């Protein structure tokens, strides 16, 4: 160490806080022996860092892919429904219990009243 005027002061400071040599030896021994335990904890730390990162990546991929995914294709199935015309309105009871009422404006090619078989093609909602 450099020689300086504060040498005695430095020595005084060192002496004041001088540790027990046995404590220092113990600290050194424990520091050298702690390696294995620390390595195991190191794996935990890596796992703790990787898991949230993987979850974030999965979430990001899902958010990107979900909107761009094509809508599920529903194959149309021919369904025969019985309906009736009443005052120009086509009234068709649907299989799910609801009733579809369409029309309203009177069209010349549509009968004003009557019953019949209606063929519907398309998606049934």
């Amino acid at each position: 160490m450099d020689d300086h005027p504060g040498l005695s002061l430095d020595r005084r400071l060192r002496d004041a806080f001088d540790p027990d040599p046995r404590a220092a030896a113990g600290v050194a021994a424990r520091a050298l022996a702690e390696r294995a335990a620390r390595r195991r904890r190191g794996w935990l730390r890596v796992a703790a860092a990787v898991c949230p990162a993987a979850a974030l990546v999965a979430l990001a991929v899902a958010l990107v892919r979900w909107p761009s995914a094509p809508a599920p294709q529903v194959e149309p199935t021919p369904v025969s429904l019985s309906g009736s015309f009443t005052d120009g309105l086509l009234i068709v009871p649907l299989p799910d219990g609801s009733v579809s009422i369409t029309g309203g404006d009177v069209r010349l090619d549509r009968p004003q009243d009557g019953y019949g078989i209606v063929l519907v093609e398309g998606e049934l909602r």
Partner: protein
Amino acid sequence: MGGQGSSEIVDLEGTIAELAPRVLRYANARLGDTALAEDVAQESLAALVRACRNGGVPRSAEAFVFAIARRRAGRAAWRRRLWAPLELAVAARTEAPSPEARAIVKDEVLRIRRALGRLPTRDREAILLVAVGGLSMADAAAALGLSISAVKMRVSRARARLASTLEERHG
């Protein structure tokens, strides 16, 4: 004293044995608590062991260990301040230190601790690393993230103030 190059840390056990009392002394001066100081010293030295085993040998083992010790001592001091009210409450319910125990506490240590407490934090950090930890100016500069001239200035200022404070109290 001075920084050890990476090729010099061949004898890891020897380096740890040499650094242990110095870093323990530094932590003791920073914290004033033997058990806490031992934890800080051990963690800092264990970090060096890990770094060496993993191949990431630091350029200066001393600067590396003391930089970690400094950070950990700071955190330990902060945590202790946080728990201090609880510890005081528990201590109040347990027995007070015996007259013998009080007599063991050296007057000199108390005087120096008070004098150190009067220093600005930055100057205290520098003098503790250099005088108590035994770091070279270059290693202290690396541990503090400062230039060597800045460390020299802080150490010199701290020495002057410490000397004057200790003289005042002595006289």
